């Protein structure tokens, strides 16, 4: 598993993908948080990081599929997947290696934003006037959301040889799962089931975490979605054996 992980990480570093992703993420989030007047923390005047956590998912929605889109589709197209699958590696080792590599990149792009936390902590009046528990919960939520998006990206990449299709499918699925269910639930059809539908989406659990309460149910939700996506990937890649 780690061989595949390091291969993918090296390929991020060699192909500049990693630097571009991190650069774009940090520049985008930095502009939104500190410069653009509508969303700037400085203009808003409250010492909290909600800007990062409300815009972050939408930036991830495009960046993560861009990271993961090549992972299986490129190997399928060039035929290297055959070489990979005829190595003494189990299928899940290959999938997990690639997944963790993608997730590592998400993790490292999020890491420097801790600086924002420090800045706001210092800027607060009185100093340290920031909802630390809520921020921690939000960070965990955003990280788990990144994990879910990565698993969706890996899955989309496994269903096609075409990277563009993989990207578009991944963005669509991320959007659907993130805010789609929430919007569906607000349609006036479901009656008392609307709450259940809302709970199927990521947004419900994400918001729940951002209140600073780490509820096991929310964690189970995130890990289940990741597991379902990776198992589906395993199923798709194993379909050659049917």
């Amino acid at each position, binding site marked *: 598993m780690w*061989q595949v992980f*390091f*291969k993918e990480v*090296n*390929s991020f570093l*060699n*192909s500049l993908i990693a630097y571009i992703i991190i650069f774009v993420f940090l520049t985008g989030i930095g502009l939104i948080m500190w410069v653009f007047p509508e969303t700037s923390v400085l203009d808003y005047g409250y010492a909290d990081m909600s800007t990062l956590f409300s815009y972050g998912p939408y930036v991830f929605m495009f960046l993560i599929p861009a990271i993961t889109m090549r992972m299986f589709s490129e190997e399928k197209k*060039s*035929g*290297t997947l*055959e*070489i990979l*699958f*005829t*190595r*003494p*590696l*189990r299928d899940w080792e290959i999938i997990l290696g690639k997944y963790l590599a993608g997730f590592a990149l998400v993790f490292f792009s999020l890491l420097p934003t801790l600086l924002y936390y420090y800045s706001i902590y210092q800027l607060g009046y009185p100093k340290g006037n920031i909802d630390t528990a809520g921020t921690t919960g939000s960070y965990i939520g955003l990280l788990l959301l990144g994990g879910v998006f990565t698993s969706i990206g890996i899955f989309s990449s496994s269903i096609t040889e075409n990277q563009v299709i993989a990207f578009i499918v991944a963005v669509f699925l991320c959007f659907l799962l993130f805010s789609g269910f929430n919007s569906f639930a607000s349609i006036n059809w479901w009656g008392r089931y609307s709450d259940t539908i809302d709970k199927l989406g990521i947004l419900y659990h994400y918001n729940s975490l951002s209140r600073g309460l780490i509820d096991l149910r929310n964690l189970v939700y995130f890990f289940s979605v990741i597991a379902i996506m990776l198992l589906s990937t395993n199923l798709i890649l194993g379909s*050659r*054996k049917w």
Partner: protein
Amino acid sequence: MSVSVKSLTKTFGTQKAVDNISFEAKEGEIVGFLGPNGAGKSTAMKIATCYLPPTEGTIEVCGQDVRSHSLNVRKNIGYLPEHNPLYLEMYVREYLDFVGSIHLSNTTLKKNRINEMIELCGLEKEQNKKIGQLSKGYRQRVGLAQALLHDPKVLILDEPTTGLDPNQIIEIRNLIKAAGKNKTVIFSTHILQEVQALCDKVVIINKGEIVANSTPKELLKLKTNNSLVVQFKEEISEKDFRKFINSDKIENLGQNQYRIAVAENDDIRPKIYQYSTENKLTLVKLTEEEGQMEDIFRHLTINNK
């Protein structure tokens, strides 16, 4: 037996790609796997390397079944797929290091093997280049190096010399020969001289079925139809000649050369000599052509429907 294929069948939907084939390859043997395009060679190789599962029957590699001991089989196999897929954005050494890390946990052993392979495959000058920058011949060497890196007992090569120039073909051939001394090598090819030059054993398949399984020498004995090549110094009337020989299977090769197809037990040489004396012709050439590999291949794969 290093590799034994046991009544292997593979169907894709309703199409039978491989139909009940069985053969064996011993340790130290180089087996040529021939057949027209679409005969099922690559499919059989993909089954042997555990990429695809068999529909019926099985393949055993070093005594281990591809179905139940897939991981062990994959440890014992070095595989070069058709078209030699490679990570073009990787450096040669980086790629070999990645392959090595999968097979060999010992880092010093891995390093030594990589250096050996780079030397064996003649990649010293190219080792720090990106694979995408290499020419086709060098890419093929990288493909062979990755297949040989973990010193596998069985080497499976799918058309290793396709698309190379004659010099490169000979280099790759020598490499296979050198590397395959203590291994079982199964390779597919379309170049029939290669089989004669390299193989201890030939397996020809057509439409998923085995049509020949023997040594190249024995295969050559399967003379399908002999032919005589005759050359006269003077111009002759082809019509008369045909009439005299009483054969339709005469081919004009130009410069008064004719190829005559003859049945196996029919010696027409005296007749030709007679023809030349009667017409006061000078017979400058009269040679018997042996059955060529190509002819046998054509015979086996076209007539057997």
